[in-house]
């Protein structure tokens, strides 16, 4: 990459446009915290420059700069529609500066809520994976049961997990345990189904190759069948993970005392839409971050595939 290609990007032009927009006098009478917005954008710009210097792969850098550019456009349009020209209802739609300011104010509270949401999700998700994968390997490998198990799994995975909530509430002591239970069910079936279809789909030649090496039964399951079906297992995990987030935030909006779903619901009840929007954006960012990390893990574990 040439220096020109590295540093002369549309993204930086968009940053300047965003700053110019901020020169337009506010029409909104609410405090708009333009300073917070500028500080936030400047922070992003700093990250973009540091990344331009250190990221070696052109594709990766282009992706990052495109995302940053998109955020600038979003912030620009958003401030035009709110603070600058008052197009949207100022009660329902706070200016971007307000949301950034609010986030800084509530940082502590938001972090605690994120921690609570993530803890619940991860607990349900990890328990489900830890149970579903060995069970799927074992049952899938005993092929005869495997065929019946496919239909049983299809039946259970077609039931939306949210309908288990009443039973969870009736059977389990705390809201936390109900959430973990529901996320467990939401993750268990897709991961179990993925593992089984992975096992049933393992190339016979790979199994023959392992058999002539005289592998023991545990080795066959965990050193051969498990890695050979890993891609399918990850398909199930991805499905489980995205359903988990949807479920958890909905569940938190119903009856939790903490978590990001609770944060959004609680403040929208008071008509505090600045905090509501802040919560929504934070949920989006957290979900993207977790998915990103999970995909990283997936491509690391499947690096042997072309």
């Amino acid at each position, binding site marked *: 990459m040439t220096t020109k290609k590295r540093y002369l990007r549309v993204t930086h032009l968009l940053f300047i446009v965003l700053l110019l927009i901020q020169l337009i006098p506010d029409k909104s009478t609410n405090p708009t915290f333009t300073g917070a917005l500028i500080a936030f954008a400047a922070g992003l710009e700093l990250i973009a420059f540091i990344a331009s210097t250190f990221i070696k792969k052109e594709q990766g850098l282009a992706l990052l700069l495109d995302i940053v550019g998109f955020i600038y456009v979003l912030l620009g349009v958003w401030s035009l529609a709110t603070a600058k020209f008052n197009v949207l209802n100022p009660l329902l739609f706070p200016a971007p500066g307000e949301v950034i300011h609010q986030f800084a104010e509530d940082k502590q509270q938001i972090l605690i809520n994120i921690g609570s949401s993530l803890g619940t999700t991860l607990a349900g998700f990890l328990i489900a994976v830890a149970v579903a994968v060995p069970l799927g390997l074992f049952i899938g490998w005993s092929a005869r049961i495997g065929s019946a198990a496919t239909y049983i799994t299809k039946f259970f995975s077609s039931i939306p997990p949210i309908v288990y909530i009443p039973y969870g509430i009736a059977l389990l002591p705390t809201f936390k345990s109900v959430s973990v239970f529901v996320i467990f069910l939401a993750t268990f079936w897709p991961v179990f189904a993925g593992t089984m279809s992975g096992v049933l789909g393992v190339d016979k*030649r790979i199994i023959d190759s392992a*058999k*002539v*090496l005289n592998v023991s039964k545990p080795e066959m399951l965990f050193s051969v069948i498990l890695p050979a079906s890993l891609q399918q297992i990850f398909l199930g995990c991805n499905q489980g993970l995205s359903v988990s987030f949807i479920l958890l935030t909905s569940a938190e909006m119903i009856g939790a005392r903490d978590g990001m779903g609770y944060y959004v619901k609680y403040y929208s009840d008071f008509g505090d839409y600045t905090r509501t929007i802040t919560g929504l954006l934070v949920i989006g960012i957290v979900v993207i971050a977790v998915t990103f990390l999970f995909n990283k893990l997936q491509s690391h574990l499947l690096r*042997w595939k*072309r």
Partner: protein
Amino acid sequence: MTTNKIEIKDLTVNYIENKRSFNALHDVSFGVGRGEFVSVVGASGCGKSTLLSVLEGLYAPAGGSVQIDGKELHGTGTERGVVFQHYSLFPWMTTKKNIEFGIKQSRRGIKRGEREKIADEFLRKVGLAEFGGKYPSQLSGGMQQRAAIARALAMNTEILLMDEPFSAIDPKNRIILQELLLKLWEGDGTEERKTVVFVTHDIDEAILLSDKIVVLTAHPGTVNEVVNVPFERPRNRADLVKTDEYGKFRSRILSLLNNDVAERIGGDEVVL
């Protein structure tokens, strides 16, 4: 006769496909001596790969017997190393890890450090010293088969079973691999040679490598003839193919194969 390493007697194998049973092999009998290199050749569908599956222990015969060192064969065993045409290596392990895994299976009790040393040694022997850290998908087909051979040899089994190991390799690399195998198997005479059963449809490959060629005919697979290869070892391809004897011998094997084809198509009017 009783000194044979592998003794196959009246072997009959049925294959079930679409609920119909096929007689894949019928009354096949031959022996493989200790340290002998035996090729099994035949047209496709003659059951030569099925025969090897039985020797590998992956397929149970319907009748007859296979004995190794006088003992009836039951399932897979650590005294046999196998090289397949595809997927001998596990795609999720690096080349070196694949070899180490093989050593771990066949030579229990060898420590990790020792396994690594043996793996490195055999990678070097097949010319893959630099490629131990690569995954199979990062290697060419020829390099994958080199690694598979390295693993089979590193496992130090008494018997080596090879199922068309070079069939999917381009002609130029196939010749290189044949010569590598020949060199590794013939050795320098200090070590005892391994007993090899090698399945192929390439006659030149069979002649170059083998002490003995078993010609199979199809439908059902039966032994047409077992031919001793008369050429001295160590062999050299370039010198060997120049001789008249080679040409004559090659024609003989070819006619043994083609007899069968001519009969099946319908008599002596067919010119091949």
